[in-house]
C-alpha cells in the first residue's frame, strides 16, 4: 500500500512535470524578405534594396547577427556593387555608365539562430530595365512663327521645334539630358542667350510632352518612336533689334550637349538668326534656328 502511495505520488509528480512540458512554447520560424530595385529618373543609377522582418516564435531561441545584403549586377553579369549592413535593411547603388539592358538586383537577409546552431535566411532577385541611348541626330524641324504669337503681344520670336532621334533600337522611355550652354559667340548688339540651360527629355510617344500641340499659337506635330521634341525659341514682348534697320540680321551660336546614363551621346551647335522686320506695321524681330 505504501508502495502504491509512493507510486501514485511519483506518477502525480511526473504528470505535473509533463503538463508544463506539453504546454511548452514551440519555436516556429517566420521570416520575410522584400527585395527590389529601382533606377533613377535620368537612368544614371540603379539601386538595389532589401528589408527583412523576423516574426518568429522564438520561445527560448535567440536570433542574432542580423545582416541585410543588397547587390547589383550589370546586364552582362558583371558585379557592380554590394552592401551588407547589420540589421534589417540594406541598399546599394551603381552607375549605369551608358550600359543598356536588364540589371539584376538582389537582396537577402541572414541571421544566426542558436537553436539551429547556424545561419538562416532568404532573399530574392529582380531585374531592372535600363535604356541608355548612345546615338542622337536631328530628325526634323518645325518653324514656330511670330505671326501666330503677335496677337498675344510678342514682338520678338519665336524659333523652332526640333525632333531628335535616338538609338540604337527601341529607346522609348529612355531619358536624355541636355545641356545648352550660354552663347559662345554672337554678332547681335547684346548677347541674346547669356545663361546656360539644362533639362531632361523622356523619349517616345508615351511622354505627353512629345505629343502634337501648339506653342504661342503655332501648331506642331508630335514626335514618334525613339524621338523627342526639343524646342529652341526666343519670345520677348519687345523688339529685340529695336533701332536696327529693316532686314538687319545677326546670329548667336551656342553648344548643345546631350547625354544619357551619364555618357555624352552627341554635341551640336545651334545657330539662331535674328532678323529685324515689321509685322502689321509694327517693328519686330524674327527668330529662326538651325542645328549642326
Amino acid at each position: 500500500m505504501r508502495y502504491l502511495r509512493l507510486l501514485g505520488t511519483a506518477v502525480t509528480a511526473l504528470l505535473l512535470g509533463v503538463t508544463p512540458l506539453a504546454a511548452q512554447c514551440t519555436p516556429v520560424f517566420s521570416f520575410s524578405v522584400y527585395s527590389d530595385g529601382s533606377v533613377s529618373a535620368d537612368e544614371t543609377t540603379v539601386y538595389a534594396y532589401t528589408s527583412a522582418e523576423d516574426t518568429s516564435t522564438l520561445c527560448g531561441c535567440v536570433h542574432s547577427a542580423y545582416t541585410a545584403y543588397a547587390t547589383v549586377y550589370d546586364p552582362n553579369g558583371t558585379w557592380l556593387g554590394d552592401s551588407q549592413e547589420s540589421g534589417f535593411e540594406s541598399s546599394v547603388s551603381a552607375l549605369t555608365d551608358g550600359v543598356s539592358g536588364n540589371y539584376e538586383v538582389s537582396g537577402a537577409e541572414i541571421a544566426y539562430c542558436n537553436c539551429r546552431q547556424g545561419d538562416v535566411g532568404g532573399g530574392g532577385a529582380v531585374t531592372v530595365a535600363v535604356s541608355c541611348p548612345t546615338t542622337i541626330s536631328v530628325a526634323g524641324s518645325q518653324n514656330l512663327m511670330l505671326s501666330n504669337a503677335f496677337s498675344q503681344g510678342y514682338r520678338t520670336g519665336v524659333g523652332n521645334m526640333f525632333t531628335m532621334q535616338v538609338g540604337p533600337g527601341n529607346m522609348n522611355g529612355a531619358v536624355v539630358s541636355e545641356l545648352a550652354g550660354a552663347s559662345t559667340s554672337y554678332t547681335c548688339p547684346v548677347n541674346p542667350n547669356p545663361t546656360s540651360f539644362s533639362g531632361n527629355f523622356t523619349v517616345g510617344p508615351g511622354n505627353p510632352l512629345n505629343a502634337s500641340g501648339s506653342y504661342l499659337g503655332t501648331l506642331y506635330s508630335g514626335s514618334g518612336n525613339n524621338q523627342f521634341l526639343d524646342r529652341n525659341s526666343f519670345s520677348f514682348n519687345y523688339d529685340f533689334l529695336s533701332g536696327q534697320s529693316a532686314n538687319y540680321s545677326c546670329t548667336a551660336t551656342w553648344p548643345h550637349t546631350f547625354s544619357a546614363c551619364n555618357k555624352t551621346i552627341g554635341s551640336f551647335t545651334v545657330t539662331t538668326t535674328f532678323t529685324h522686320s515689321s509685322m502689321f506695321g509694327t517693328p519686330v524681330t524674327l527668330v529662326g534656328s538651325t542645328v549642326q
Partner: protein
Amino acid sequence: MLQNVKQCPIKLSMAVIMSCSLLSAQHVHPMSSSSAAPGLPVLVDGSKNPEKIPDNLAYWHFFAAVAAHVTPTAKEQGRQNAQLLALNLSAVDRQNFVAALAGFRATLDGIEATLLAQASAAQVVSLRQQKDSLLSSTMAALNSSLTADGLAKLNGYVTTHVKQHIVIYGGSTM
C-alpha cells in the same frame, strides 16, 4: 525612369544566399563558408501568390525599404527618389509621404538598435509591439496627410508590386 521591373526567374533563396556567401568570402564577412545560411522553407512566394502576403507586412517592408532620415544622406536621397518614381505621387503627396516616413525611420532606428543589441525575450516581444504601433501610427499619418489619389496610388503599388517581391519563410520548427 523606372520601368519593366520584373521578377527574376531565379528561385529565390538559395541562389541569393549562396551569392551572399560568396560575397562574404570576398569582403571578409564573419560568416564562414561552413555556416552559410541554409534556405528556409518558403511559406509564401509573393511572385506566385501575392494575395497571400498580408497587407500590413507588405506596407512594413515597403516603408522600411523606402524610409530615409529627416536629413537624408545623398545616398538615401537618391535611393528614395528612385523608389518613389514608380508611385507617381503629386508633389504635395510626395512631400507628405516622405515626411511621414522620416518619422517612421527615426523610430525604427531605435527599435532595431535595441533588437540588434541582443534583446531579451521580453524585450523582443515589446519591440514587436512597438513595431506594430509604429506601422499603425504611420498608416494613420498617411491616411490624414495623403490625398485620396495618393492613398490609392500607394495602395496600388504596395498591393500589385511590393507584394510580388516579398517571400515569407517559415512553417518549420527551429
